[in-house]
């Protein structure tokens, strides 16, 4: 499947973008040309040779702040995805195997999480349990977990009901063996899709929370925080939010493109998508002949 994936142009673009983001995340603070916390007299300056993306309201270099903000921004969205992955996938798979009581209880818990309005709950949790980025991440992760639960459960169910697993059970295979041998193979692709989507979601939610004044204290740079504070200076620099917005957008878009690509590559239409161009050429050649 990975081979098919790499043949999709959209997947190649997405992976390329994500590699760049990964480099920025790992080396962003080192790459930053200026101290992201050091202001100057040059406030709200437009882009120039010295400051490629201009400066902010205290005269700090915007490019440096975006680069330095990468680790916290990306790591926190990874945190969201990680929490959701663990809290969703494992109970999702186990719900099929651990008997009806666990199944019922976990299903109701998931239904409950789904019924809680996302941002309201995240705001409530962070505000009531202490205003910190970790609290925010846990809240969001918890609320995204149902996505993973459902996907994992659905995939596991199809495996559990298929004949080869029945055969394995009859042959006396243990649950653990079945999960490792059969379930992972079926569950991983949909989980990968959900994970890719969630990684994007995390970034957007964090920036929304920052906009509402929840999560990060100044002057710590995060992409969402830079975006939110730029909005205060729209009269001076209407284009300023474009820079953080674009990097958020590009990252989220890349994750989503990757998710779509995985979906295509895993599904039936992957064959057609991958081969469409070749098929057209084949047809032309055949008709000409």
């Amino acid at each position, binding site marked *: 499947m990975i081979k098919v994936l790499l043949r999709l142009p959209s997947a190649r673009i997405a992976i390329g973008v994500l590699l760049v983001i990964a480099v920025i995340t790992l080396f962003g603070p080192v790459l930053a040309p200026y101290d992201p916390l050091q202001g100057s007299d040059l406030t709200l300056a437009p882009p120039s040779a010295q400051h490629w993306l201009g400066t902010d309201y205290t005269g700090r270099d915007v490019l440096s702040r975006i680069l330095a903000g990468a680790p916290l921004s990306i790591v926190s969205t990874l945190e969201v995805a990680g929490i959701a992955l663990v809290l969703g996938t494992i109970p999702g798979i186990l719900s099929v195997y651990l008997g009806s009581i666990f199944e019922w209880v976990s299903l109701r818990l998931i239904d409950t999480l789904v019924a809680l*309005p996302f941002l309201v709950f995240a705001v409530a949790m962070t505000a009531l349990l202490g205003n910190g980025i970790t609290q925010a991440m846990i809240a969001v992760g918890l609320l995204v977990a149902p996505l993973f639960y459902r996907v994992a459960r659905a995939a596991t169910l199809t495996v559990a009901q298929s004949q080869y697993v029945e055969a394995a059970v009859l042959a006396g295979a243990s649950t653990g063996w079945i999960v490792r041998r059969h379930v992972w193979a079926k569950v991983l692709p949909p989980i990968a899709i959900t994970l890719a989507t969630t990684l994007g979601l995390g970034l957007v939610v964090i920036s*929304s929370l920052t906009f509402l004044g929840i999560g990060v204290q100044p002057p710590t740079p995060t992409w969402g925080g830079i975006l939110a504070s730029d909005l205060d200076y*729209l009269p001076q620099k209407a284009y300023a939010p474009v820079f953080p917005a674009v990097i958020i957008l590009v990252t989220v878009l890349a994750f989503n493109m990757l998710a779509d690509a995985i979906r295509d590559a895993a599904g039936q239409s992957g064959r057609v998508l991958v081969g469409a161009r070749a098929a057209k050429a084949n047809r032309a050649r055949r008709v000409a002949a």
Partner: protein
Amino acid sequence: MRRSRGRRLAVSIGKPLAVFVPVFLLGTFFTFLLGHLSGRSPAYIQLGDAATPEAVAAVEHEWGLDRPFGVQYVDWLGDIFRFDLGESWFNGHSVAEVLLDRAVITLSAAGVALVIGVVAGFALGALAARFHATWVDRAVTGFTTTISVLPPFVVGIALVAVFAVSLDLLPAAGYVPIEAGLGPWLSHLILPAIALSFDTVADVARQLRDGLVSTKRENYVTGALVRGLGPRRIFFVHVLRNGVGPALAVLGLKFPALLGGAVVTEAIFGLSGYGVFATQAAIRGDVPAVQGVLVVSVVLVVLFNLVVNVVLNRLAPAAARGV
């Protein structure tokens, strides 16, 4: 046969009801637990600089916060059944009353957003499915992905800048009750609703496209084709009806997101709805108000899903069996 149809409807309501009760209980329990864990107290909000330990204890006693957790929970739950969500610690207003006023605004915005989400989402999804694997499909997918990843506050501010300020077509903020006329009401809601609907449009379109594409591969579509039914009829009667399941199911899931999205959208569009209230209450640590918001959300979401389920059942009984 009549009875069987009646039974189907009963099942379609009864099943979600069996889900509703535990979800309601768990949801309210979480909500209450959250408030309890927060360790917030009305004393600090009310007393300000006069918060001596004795004064705090007195205020907490007055609010019954010195009783055991279980007792407080059961008491609170009992009040909920009497539509009493308690009083705000901050200003003593009845939370239920305030929420009722505000829910009207939020539900109006969410309702219009839902209509936009359904209409635009279905149109885009159907378009992409109809022209599956062509540039139309790719363009629609690209568009829906882009709008779904835009942070809602950026969307809101951009909409205000374009439609309210540059084009001067619509008011930038505020709310006018529907009694003042459908036009003014809608004109104030349309921008926030659009901002709110982006995520729903994208998700519905995506799910519908996937649903339709996979439905188009179903044998019964081939069957209908072989029977000599025209493509348009096949699409609307056979494909749409069955392919709509996932999109409808997603709509059920989107409702909490619409309510949640109100938090940001209302702040931008100056709507004094329930999202703004929730944020303010949460930030202030006004526990009864936050709990009230969450309880109302849970109830609204479950009710909405009940409706979705009934619709799904009428539309595609087979698809609904799996829900």
